[in-house]
């Protein structure tokens, strides 16, 4: 089990130690990218000095969706059903716009079964931070392809993915998300500021975080011990043994390309957007990342942000008081109103 580590003692503006922002001990695999993302989330909320009980963390089902148990232990938690976190978050947000809403999901949860809800929550401009912990596989059900797996990639069992893959960030741009970013679980220096910016964004903020799966990103051509494990598991034809490994960390400059070697030796080419990139041009953002994607590069950073986003509450013009805080007096029109209605129905 991995414990999300952090320096002791240091407190934030609220005088809270970082420990307060942690959750229960993680039950994910050693070295799982998701735990690094949890650490980044803890860091971001700690640094912004936000009171944990003013935060609602919601998720679907999956290893990634388990993580809300492992951070912000004093925040309101909600594990919904597979692929349906966006609708639950939308309802909660409309009932009480006063909280910060953090939606955590996986690529299976959001790109496969949940693609529709993902899309519609983005379209509606729900004020939330929507993080997809993207490993290209279904971790919790043991390594099947998700809809974000590259076409042509091989699974642990040697099957080849023949479907074209979904680029969630590109689709989010298409669907009018007002904040779209991509990062890598191991790039704390990039990820923490992005999460902080997303929290402060008053609209639908989507973050696609590549997060290697220790257990199932396990192709031919990886390290010695790996080959043995693969052969072993292939032979017995079930996932029996998982080699513990350390999480992958990266640090690279804006404007540069970093080749990240995953646990199994497979590589990712990450391009960090340059300082002079214009993050306010939606059409430009689409073209930029599509162009580099065509070259096999994954663009990371804040791809697009709208200066004055309109969230769903603004669009609906709801009252300032959170709807869940309205009193009976405000909720019930009263008996004279009912008499008028009765009269009007004669």
């Amino acid at each position, binding site marked *: 089990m991995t414990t999300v580590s952090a320096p002791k003692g240091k407190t934030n503006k609220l005088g809270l130690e970082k420990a307060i922002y942690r959750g229960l001990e993680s039950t994910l695999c050693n070295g799982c990218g998701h735990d690094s993302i949890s650490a980044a989330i803890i860091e971001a909320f700690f640094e912004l000095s936000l009171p944990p009980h003013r935060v609602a963390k919601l998720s679907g089902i999956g290893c990634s969706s388990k993580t809300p148990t492992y951070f912000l232990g004093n925040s309101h938690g909600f594990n919904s059903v597979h692929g*349906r976190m966006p609708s639950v978050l939308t309802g909660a947000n409309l009932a009480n716009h006063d909280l910060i809403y953090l939606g955590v999901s996986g690529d299976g949860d959001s790109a496969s079964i949940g693609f529709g809800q993902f899309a519609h929550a983005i379209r509606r401009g729900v004020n939330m931070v929507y993080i997809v912990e993207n490993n290209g596989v279904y971790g919790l059900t043991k390594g099947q392809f998700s809809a974000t797996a590259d076409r042509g990639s091989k699974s642990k069992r040697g099957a080849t993915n023949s479907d074209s893959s979904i680029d969630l960030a590109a689709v989010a741009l298409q669907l009018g998300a007002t904040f779209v970013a991509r990062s890598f679980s191991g790039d704390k220096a990039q990820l923490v500021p992005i999460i902080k910016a997303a929290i402060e964004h008053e609209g639908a903020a989507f973050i696609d975080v590549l997060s290697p799966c220790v257990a199932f990103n396990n192709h031919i051509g990886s390290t010695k011990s790996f080959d043995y494990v693969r052969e072993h598991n292939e032979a017995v034809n079930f996932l029996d043994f998982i080699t513990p490994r350390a999480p992958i960390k990266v640090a690279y400059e804006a404007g540069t390309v970093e080749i990240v070697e995953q646990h199994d030796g497979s590589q990712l080419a990450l391009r960090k957007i340059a300082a002079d990139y214009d993050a306010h041009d939606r059409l430009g953002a689409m073209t930029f990342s599509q162009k580099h994607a065509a070259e096999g590069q994954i663009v990371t950073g804040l791809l697009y942000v709208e200066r004055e986003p309109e969230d769903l509450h603004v669009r609906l013009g709801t009252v300032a008081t959170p709807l869940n805080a309205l009193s009976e007096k405000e909720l019930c029109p009263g008996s004279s109103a*009912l008499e008028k209605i009765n009269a009007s129905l004669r």
Partner: protein
Amino acid sequence: MTIVEPKASPAPHSAGEPIVNDFSITIATKNGSGSQTANATILRALFKMGIPVSGKNLFPSNIQGQPTWYTIRASREGFIARRPRSEILVAMNKATIIEDVQKLEPGGMCVYAEGTGYVPQRSDVTFYKIPAEKLANASGLDGKLRGYAENMAYVGVLIELLGIDLEEVKAALDWHFKGKAKAIEPNIKTISAAIEWSRANLVKRDPYKLEPMDKTGGLIMIDGNTAGALGAIFGGVTFAAWYPITPATSLADALNVYLPRLRTDPETHKPTYSVIQAEDELAALGMVTGAGWAGARAMTSTSGPGISLMSEFAGFGYFAEIPAVIWDIQRMGPSTGLPTRVSQGDVLAVYWLGHGDSKHVMLLPGSVKECFEFGWRAFDLAERLQTPVFVLSDLDIGMNNWMSEPFEYPEGQMDRGKVLTAEDLTRLEGKWARYRDVDGDGIGWRTLPGTDHPLAAYFTRGTGHTEIATYSERPEHWEANMERLGRKFETARQLLPAPVEDRVDGAEIGLIAFGSTDPAVVEARSRLAAKGVKTSYLRLRALPLNDSVESFVRAHERVYVVELNSDAQLTQLVRLDTPELAAKVFPLNHNDGLPLTARWIVETLEKMEA
């Protein structure tokens, strides 16, 4: 001048007694032609004349051009169930006129449009041919709208032939168009022209007459979906998510009509609610679940196909214990079935909706008034029981207009259920357990996200959990939690609206029914009584059943469960609840897509009794 075709005369009744305020009128048109306004106007005019009436719209699953029928029943004695046949036919639709005429009661009368080119074929029916198109010119509307005006032509003709009070018709139009003169005027013009023409050209040859009565004083007339929406509003609905589906759409529509009038902030005029059209029913219930979790009074409305899609969230809500109100305006299934026909076929599917050991609390409104009442009560129950509450209405109650006692203002205060405030938490020093049964009723105490206390939060999940809401796979935790949920379901039995009973001394036969079949049961019982057959009646208003059902079954030799479905679904639930009496319980179920008639009940019961 149009005279009745020789073949058709003399109409048998022409000599006989007048038949007053006791017959049905079927109006056959094409949908999208504007006839709904004409028909609703006639219905309300009769209502305003003090005559007990009911109107039933039999419409196709289509937008324009298909046959549609509207039946108005006037009943001196106040019976408002559908009758299998009508005495009067207004035949405007060439496509169906031959069959429509065949369905008329012997001795009936028929007003038909010249444009149908119909040649009368029944000698026992009085026919009146009317030049609807010509009369429509009087409307002053341009060509394209003539078709619409033709409907007002038959209104005028019926005013003259049946003696409908013109003033009440005008009042009805005024009500209908909310006083919009511009909209009303062309109708009045056409009606007047039709009246004049009738006076000049028609000789009354049939016995049917309408006369003012005093039987509707103080009553209102409304459809069940609007009633349900109003009930929800007076129950403080703050969030609704829905997806369009017939016959539930008009419930959400009514929310969108009345909420802006009734529920905006006095200063800012901003809405104190939000209504979202979701992308589908999974999302609709997902949103309602999120809002209910957050402490809003949240609801959705749907029909069969939507219920199927809500299965997963329904089971989640049952297990994670989240208040939600789900209206199921039942239509004919399985599958897409008949979207514009009535049925009560979702009873079993909803009761056990969701995999695993899920079961649900259901309310069964039997009138528009109960739609209003259950509209607010459902929220009290959902929040008290911390569970999804289903309200099973149907297309007949939901979309047709019904006479009703005025709505009554919700009793007492809202019951917001067991919620711990920041103050409570301070008092408890933050020590609380979301799923602990401190009160022995199986219901724990919850907090709402946003409660201003550092220890207010807990973790909601659909997986196994402890009393303090942490994840657990331990057998003892699972069993304890399921036992508590069982206790909660027993608590529900006691909190739900009790059945309405009419036990008759010496009655061997007991009838159990629910929902829209009530008027047919009421009428059937009086007919049976007239024949000397005593029956007791228990009208269910909620599931799970409470003890009174068992005692009712015990008290009778034979109990028949009246319901509109193919699988006798409620019959099965009654038997399950009364195992040792199960053999006394018989199905009296029918399922042809039409509202039930008293005649069917009487005849079928007599067969079964024989």
